[in-house]
């Protein structure tokens, strides 16, 4: 029975990660937009939903006591708007600028979470976030299973919607832009407009994932949204294979299993005073794994990476047949 409960708990976490990875896949896999600050967007979602749904708290702003569903919708909206603003600022420039700016967004969100006590509760975070089926908390198994069901349904809906989107005319434009920007523009598609849309939708999905997690654990603090989160999700997407929604989900579950498994292993193998060091070795291993996969099997398990990416292509053309392009 314990094992079943843990299995449900594990899968719930893994599926929340899948949801973030699905958002990243829309941004990177489908559109080629590089987001190294996704922890920031997840945090925005978590805090928005927490603010909207917690009971009134004198120590900080709000606690508006709204239904959980309203919190989730609000999270998606705020996350999407934040992503759209980031996109509008940077998507007319070289792709590296987006990377640097998203990195900055994550830093600033972390800073606000830590310091704006009135809004976010500061380093102590926000507690008493209402949980769906909170009444079942007496029987942990039932509670875990019902949470798993909720998260599964949300993930499935997002998955199906993304699958549909990537086959729709909208998704085809994104793929066309990723493969050959000039050709797509010559057909009258505004590159920037479509990219901002994709980035905003991806940001909204990440924020939704953050909100789900906040309501699942009932407590959030700035420490949940450190750069390590961004890093984990990237490894999940690359292992699964960017460009494939199936890969995003499978990769997330696989990498989360490795992560949780090696975490358990280190806690068994190392004495308590050495565990912080062992944990850092765990990160080294995952970092090396990311680099090795990029070198050896850049397509991951199910990948459909651009055969001709945005900027590498131009360099290749310039080097190979210089004169034909500007």
């Amino acid at each position, binding site marked *: 029975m314990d094992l079943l409960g843990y299995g449900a708990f594990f899968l719930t976490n893994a599926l929340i990660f899948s949801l973030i990875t699905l958002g990243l896949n829309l941004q990177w896999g489908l559109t080629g937009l590089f987001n190294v600050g996704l922890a920031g967007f997840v945090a925005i979602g978590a805090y928005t939903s927490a603010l909207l749904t917690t009971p009134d708290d004198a120590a900080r702003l709000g606690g508006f006591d709204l239904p959980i569903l309203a919190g989730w919708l609000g999270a998606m909206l705020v996350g999407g708007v934040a992503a759209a603003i980031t996109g509008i600022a940077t998507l007319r420039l070289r792709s*590296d600028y987006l990377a640097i700016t998203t990195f900055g967004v994550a830093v600033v969100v972390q800073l606000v979470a830590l*310091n704006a006590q009135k809004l976010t509760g500061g380093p102590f975070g926000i507690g008493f976030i209402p949980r769906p089926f909170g009444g079942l908390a007496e029987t942990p198994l039932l509670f875990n299973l019902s949470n798993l069901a909720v998260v599964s349904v949300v993930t499935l809906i997002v998955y199906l919607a993304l699958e549909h989107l990537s086959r729709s005319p909208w998704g085809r434009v994104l793929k066309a832009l990723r493969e050959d920007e000039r050709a797509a523009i010559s057909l009258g598609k505004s590159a920037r407009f479509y990219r901002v849309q994709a980035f905003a939708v991806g940001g909204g999905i990440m924020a939704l994932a953050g909100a789900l997690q906040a309501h699942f654990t009932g407590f959030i603090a700035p420490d949940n949204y450190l750069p390590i989160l961004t890093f984990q999700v990237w490894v999940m997407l690359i292992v699964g294979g960017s460009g494939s929604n199936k890969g995003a989900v499978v990769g997330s579950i696989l990498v989360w299993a490795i992560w949780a498994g090696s975490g358990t292993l280190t806690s068994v193998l190392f004495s308590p005073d050495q565990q912080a060091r062992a944990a*850092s070795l765990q990160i080294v291993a995952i*970092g090396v794994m990311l680099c090795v996969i990029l070198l050896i099997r850049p397509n991951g398990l199910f990948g459909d990476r651009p055969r001709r990416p945005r900027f590498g292509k131009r360099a290749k053309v310039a080097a190979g047949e210089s004169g034909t392009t500007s």
Partner: protein
Amino acid sequence: MNLQFVVDGLLAGSMIGLGAIGVTLTYSILRFSNFAHGDFMAWGAYATLAVVGAVGAMFGKIAPIAPLSFGWPLIAAVVIGMAITGLLALLLDMVLFARLRAKGQAIIVVMASFGASMALRSLLEFIFTSRPTYFSRAIQIAMPVGFGIRITPDQIALLLLTAVLVLGVHLLMTRTQTGRSMQALSQNAALARIVGIDVAKVVRVTWIVGGALACVAGVMIGILIQIRPFMGFDMLLPMFAAAILGGIGSVPGAVLGGLIIGMAEAGAVQLIGAEWRAAVSFIILMTVLFVRPIGLFGVRER
């Protein structure tokens, strides 16, 4: 308003500027933003610390040079640390970045640098633990120099060192054949190859210069503040912001950008509070991207 922020800003700006030179060179010559650059700083500081320890073990305790908090062991160790950090950058390029560059996917290289950054930093945490350490625990008395400004001998020495290094890099870039090759490669890679510039050599020099300067910046942070594994990662955003503000590819621009951001940070610390320091670079970065994305001394990309 207390004028002390001028000194604080100059010091912070020196650290940011020295790092930003490396960022701007890698960006303009190798064409990717290196997220592992901050961790070169931390590695440089820890390498220097290890060498200082080794020197201490070999020669016993050595008294610091008169008003400074450090003696010749640290000075020798910085030189060795610069070499180690340069080699580390070269090594990382050899096993990782060069191979990915050969595949011609610029943004994959950025992602790999992000992974490498995580791995490098956590490796430091594993070896040295995350507890902060110091080169010296001696307390220096700051001397008043008028206008309500106080400065320590260490700070004066480090400001002078920064000026010498920046001048050196500037002369390297403008007066030597290697430096001119670097400029040529950053302006037009294909044409540079056609006129027979040794690209591999230029790439090597770029990494060594970037790594060595990052080491110095790291040691400066170590002397003035403290050494910890995250010290470089926390400098990443200010460094990127400085490089973009100065204009990608411009060494004087990177230094000036660093000084501006350092000053702005120090001013913000006084006016708003230290906890919001990190937001300053982000605001400057966003403003530059909206108003003048090529930066102060940048040229439009061809």
